């Protein structure tokens, strides 16, 4: 559910980040003159021409692991809480975004040339410890040799960053990310069935169900591998979490941002929880799913279970990007969950083209454990 990032960037017209400003922004006057050209235009518009997210659609695998080019935005998103051989806690993130530049109805000019494409890929990676937060970013158009999502075997790649599975399924797979400052290679295995979020994979993003996405997760992944930071290589092992999400419109105009949590609890269960922020407390939309290794789980949201989920910031931190809530109290009465979370590294800004806060967290309270938190829309 890294969606916030994607969403925030592509659907809110005030884009403050460097790349977004550079590449996609244009003044309101220009927008008026030039329909359908830049991404900021696209995000400001409705998803006209793109496919809609509809309730009741049955997700099919392995087909739905692949790209859905008829939707505007999509991502493959992995977070991992790992421990090095020296006992240091390290968080790892990898996300590959797909952005549909034009609706599928618009024809490409030349079909023979692999360079012509209406799909753009962007990938983010980070390694976060208590003292350091390393980030990197890559861009490419969709091109079979440069960036693609392909089957047989299942591969998600953007140049030398890639998720390489051994089959058409997601696992077992190797995730490789290479950068001058850091690189990692992780072996990922999972025996558990995927978890469909929301209503069988239809995930509402507002109380009135005006916007939604297709969303499924694999919260039970075992990880071994190596991480190299500034030339020093260490063995790591731990747990990871994969999110897959796609849609043509994520946020309503009134929504400002997103607080998203992936929590691995010490009773063996996992919890996904998010809050979409409206103008006031009453406008916030809450959603969560408690998930178990056998594939079962329970959905809770603020429309069907008003007041059940409570998420409150308890500590704020001024980072380079803005003032962020780095500690939370999260309670779900019906699940007997009452937790406090604390960021491992309060300065976990992702200062890339589309900036947001994202980093590992520790959990105390009714349950203990580790997880990841993503915050967007704070300034």
């Amino acid at each position, binding site marked *: 559910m890294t969606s916030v990032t994607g969403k925030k960037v592509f659907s809110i017209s005030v884009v403050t980040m*460097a*790349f977004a*400003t*550079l*590449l*996609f*922004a*244009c*003044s309101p006057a*220009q927008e008026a003159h*030039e329909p*359908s*050209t*830049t*991404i900021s235009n*696209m995000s400001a518009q409705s998803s006209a021409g793109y496919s809609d997210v509809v309730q009741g659609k049955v997700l099919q695998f392995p087909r739905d692991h692949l790209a859905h080019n008829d939707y505007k935005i999509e991502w493959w998103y992995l977070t991992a809480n790992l421990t090095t051989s020296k006992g240091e806690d390290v968080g790892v993130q990898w996300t590959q975004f797909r952005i549909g*530049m*034009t609706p599928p109805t*618009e024809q*490409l*000019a*030349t079909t*023979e*040339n692999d*360079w*012509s*494409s*209406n799909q*753009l890929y962007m990938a983010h990676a980070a390694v976060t410890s208590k003292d350091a937060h390393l980030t990197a*970013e*890559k*861009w*490419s*158009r969709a091109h079979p*040799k*440069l960036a693609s999502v392909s089957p047989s075997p299942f591969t998600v790649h953007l*140049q*030398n960053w890639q998720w390489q599975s051994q089959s058409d399924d997601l696992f077992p797979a190797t995730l490789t990310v*290479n*950068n*001058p400052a850091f690189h990692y290679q992780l072996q990922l295995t999972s025996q558990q069935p995927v978890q469909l979020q929301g209503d069988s994979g239809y995930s509402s993003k507002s109380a009135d169900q005006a916007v939604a996405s297709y969303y499924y997760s694999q919260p039970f992944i075992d990880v071994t591998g190596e991480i190299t930071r500034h030339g020093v290589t260490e063995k790591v092992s731990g747990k990871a979490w994969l999110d897959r999400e796609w849609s043509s419109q994520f946020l309503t105009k009134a929504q400002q941002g997103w607080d998203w949590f992936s929590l691995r609890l010490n009773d063996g269960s996992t919890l996904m929880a998010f809050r979409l922020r409206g103008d006031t407390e009453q406008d916030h939309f809450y959603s969560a799913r408690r998930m178990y290794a056998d594939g079962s789980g329970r959905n809770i949201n603020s429309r069907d279970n008003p007041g059940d989920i409570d998420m409150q910031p308890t500590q704020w931190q001024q980072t380079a990007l803005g003032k962020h809530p780095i500690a939370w109290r999260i309670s779900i009465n019906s699940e007997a969950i009452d937790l406090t979370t604390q960021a491992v590294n309060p300065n976990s800004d992702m200062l890339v*083209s589309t900036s947001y806060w994202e980093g590992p967290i520790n959990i105390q309270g009714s349950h203990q454990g580790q997880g990841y938190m993503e915050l967007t829309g704070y300034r």
Partner: protein
Amino acid sequence: MKTDAFATRRLLLCLRLFASHYRHAPLQASAILLGIMLAVTLLIGVYATNANAKQSYGNVSELLSKQASVSISHLTQDTINEAIYFTLANAGFDAIASIEGVATDEQGRLWRVNSSDIIAAISTGLAQDEQASSSVASVNIPLAELLAGQPKVLMSASQQERINKVTNQSQTITLNNIPLDIVTIDEQWGLGSALLADISLAQPLLNMQGKLSYIAVFNADKSETDSELITRLTHTLTQAGVDSSQLRFTTQASEGESLSALTASFHLNLDAMSMLAFVVGLFIAYNGVRYSLMKRQKLLVQIMQQGVDRRTVMLALSIEIISLVFMGCVLGFIVGLQLSQWLQPMVALTLEQLYGAKLLPGNWQWQWFAQALALTLSAAFAACIPMLLSLVNTPLAQGAQKQPQNKQFNIIHRRQFIIAVILLLLCTVAFAFTEQYRHSLVLLGALVVAIPLLLPQCLHWVVNLLSAAMPKGLWQYVVAETKEIIAPLALAMMAILLALCANIAMNTLVGSFEITLKKWLDARLHADLYIRPNPNQMEALIILLAKDPKVEATYEQWTVDSSLSRAKTPQTQVPINLVSRDHLSLTDTTVFKTTADNFWPAFTAGHSIMISEPLSIKYQLNIGDKVQLSQLQQHTLTVGAIYYDYGNPKGEVLISQSLWRQSPLPTKPFSLAVNYQGELSTLQNNISQQLNLSSAYMYSQQRIKTEAITIFNKTFSITVVLNSLTLLVAAIGLFSACVMLTQARQAPLARLYALGVSRNQLRLMVVVQMLFIVLLTCLVALPMGALLGYLLIHKVTLQAFGWSIAMIWDWAAYGQVVVIAIISCLLAVSLPLYWQTRKPLISSLQQEAL
């Protein structure tokens, strides 16, 4: 304290006095300001243009992006396989796939198309420099359409304006039969004159499917050196099974340096011209200052008699000069920046066509103003201090009497003449020994100083000769007065002499060059049609031509980039074009400067080579020298002949066809020349249709000639413009000097009128006097201009560009500049005469005499 206060008050008083003097004589103030302004304008105009160009070489960056560290191209071919780019990108290198090519529009005009993977270009640019975003944030690129391969090209606003003028279409252009929409983007993206397309459009547009021109690689880690990066690239490519020995790795630093070296002479020439214009401008300003001081001589003595001390007067005069210089500089600076805006497209065109250098829009700097101000101030003081000192030191007892100035000026003029003669002699001797164009330019500078110094004394002698021959009466008066006005007019005349000489010299150079170039083209071009297809179409083209019965002969040419070194010093590599042609073409079309004895047998055997004249002169290579070529390292070759080459300032080496074939060089010819019996257009259409080859790749002999001359004219347009500006400045200077002088002579003229000389006679007299001086100056300019032209052609151009040119004298051009001088003089004289006739006699009589 009290004395200080008095001193300040006296100083202020003096300044107020001088200010009101200029209020009464605005002409004097404007002459001074105009001179300074024009001098600074030309100086700054050229300086800014040059500084911008030089800065551009240093920052040669990938379009839409940043400066790359290394660029990878094929050693012997135009293109590389795009698979190499995928290998590098997937190995994690920060790289941009790039394509350069030429496309033709519906009218057969050629357009350079640059192209890259726009996403890679923009994201790499950002990763390298976060701050770039703020300056280019305003851009609105239709990214989706570009990526989708839609027919859209990006163009800078200024380039689009230029195109509008040519095509009368603002939003579309049809290239290689594909109609393209033009998207205008901000100048700050540094597109220059390029058309930028996304690679998805450029590959089909330029018929380069699966191919790239080069790959720009960026240094991700700043601590990594270029050579380490190249080692890493080679390693990666070798591991991926790519033969990296067929690739050329060029570091951006070396590219910038070689561009700077190649264009150095061009910029030096511009600098020299701007200095000349500056000097001419200063002459005018100096003339103005001197005139205004002369007019105030009486006033100065009077205020000193009234107790103002010499120090205060001196200080006040200095402050006056400083403020005039400052005002003139500010005005000149502003106009100069405007001028540079106007010159830059011209310079950009020249540099692009001559050297393939791209120019980026630049920003002006405050330092330029400071430099111009410092230069002007020091020049102004150096010129004025002696005059100020002598004025302030005038004995008070001399009172307000007019000094016998003529004697003093005669001495000065004689001294100037002696200095000039000595300088001329020194230059003549030194010129025989110069080998470098920089030294020659310094000598040329000395000569430029010497020439005007000759003038006043020459004028004196001619007038003295005349006075003996003149009848008594009015004519004697005319001659005597002419003698008297030589001194006040001398400076303006010197300025116009300088400008005339420079103009005559430059016209001679350009005219001679054009004729030499045309002759050379006639000899060099022997075929009817020249074709340069894409390398992959060459074979098909050869087969097609062989089948056509009307094709009389086919000539082949091979070309690769190479470098040459002397056998003794193999480490010093000179970049050259290595060329070979079939034997017939070589014997028929090469115009030799010199050849060794028994040259042809040695050449055909592959023992000796021919080198172009620019290469021979720039690196002092002569017949018999032993050299090595980078692609033929097992051979040591002898320079056997030097041939003329006006097409290319870069060095060129010709080797025999057999030697080419033995060497590891591309076997397919680079271009073909065809002799055809029949309608050339039939052949062209035939080739176009059968090979789908755009007519952009085919040149008829006539078209080459026309384009060569067009390029030539553009190359010299900037120099011609600067020269005309200098002449204009000098003409303005002459005008202002004549106006001031004629106005000052109103009293004696009125006296003559009162004595019975008719107005017509008076007018005739004044006009004859002025014309006489101007014509004499033009006469002096004739041999001196020819001398300068000779040195420009046979020394500076030869040494700087390596082109030997036969000097051809152009009387029409000379006549033109003489006419300009006469017209500006006539205008300058008639205006004050007209004023005078409108004034009552008494007011003219009351005018203060000279």
